[in-house]
């Protein structure tokens, strides 16, 4: 869940909530059409010794793509498809940069692409994702499947500026 919820609500998002003690606590910046974050993780997130778990790498990229989707259109979205391709291990204790940008957008969905890189610009993993836009209309159509309280929060987040922008 992008930090569309942090402005007026207590988000506990694993990816971006600043107060989730076990979360990634990613903080994003916008550079034109590209959204970036820097991340350095320790042994709590390992798979093999010294290597960040591949699922965590996927989470970093999912969050980065989702942030690009939300911040570029001010509409929250659910991930409906995510393809990760790994090129090399993400090492623990080393700063990396993740970035994402929008590839295609229509009224229903957005496609985004992104990449996680080492400090030297070497590719660690590449992501392509599809996101279902939670517009007011989509929320109305899916009101039976999404908790009412979440719909209320998402409606209030649509159109608002996230913190840091």
């Amino acid at each position, binding site marked *: 869940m992008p930090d569309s919820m942090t402005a007026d609500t207590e988000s506990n998002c694993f990816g971006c909530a600043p107060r989730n003690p076990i979360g990634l606590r990613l903080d994003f910046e916008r550079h034109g059409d590209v959204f970036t974050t820097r991340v350095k993780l320790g042994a709590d997130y390992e798979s093999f010794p010294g290597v960040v778990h591949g699922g965590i790498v996927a989470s970093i990229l999912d969050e980065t793509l989702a942030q690009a989707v939300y911040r570029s259109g001010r509409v929250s979205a659910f991930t409906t498809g995510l393809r990760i*391709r790994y090129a090399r291990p993400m090492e623990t204790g080393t700063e990396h940069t993740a970035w994402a940008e929008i590839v295609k957008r229509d009224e229903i969905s957005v496609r985004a692409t992104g990449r996680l890189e080492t400090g030297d610009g070497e590719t660690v993993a590449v992501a392509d994702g599809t996101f279902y836009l939670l517009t007011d209309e989509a929320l109305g159509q899916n009101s039976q499947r999404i908790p009412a309280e979440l719909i209320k929060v998402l409606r209030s987040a649509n159109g608002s500026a996230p913190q840091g922008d």
Partner: protein
Amino acid sequence: MDIRARVCAIISKQLSVPEGELAPDQHFRALPNVDSMRILQIILETEKAFDIEIDDDATFRLQTIGEFQDLVERLCRQGAAT
């Protein structure tokens, strides 16, 4: 430029190897400057150039340039048929 030549051009660019030095029976692992990152870059560039999707296992299943060219040709034909 046909599909096979375009694939060679992508490999040439990513590995900084002249196209004239690339042949279908050459193994990827024997090419200069090859590592997993560059192989991934070749796949991404190829997907973009031909608007196709290459399976993840291509990274370790494909042995030669010719096999990769065959795969791209097959995917392009499938795409054209749908």
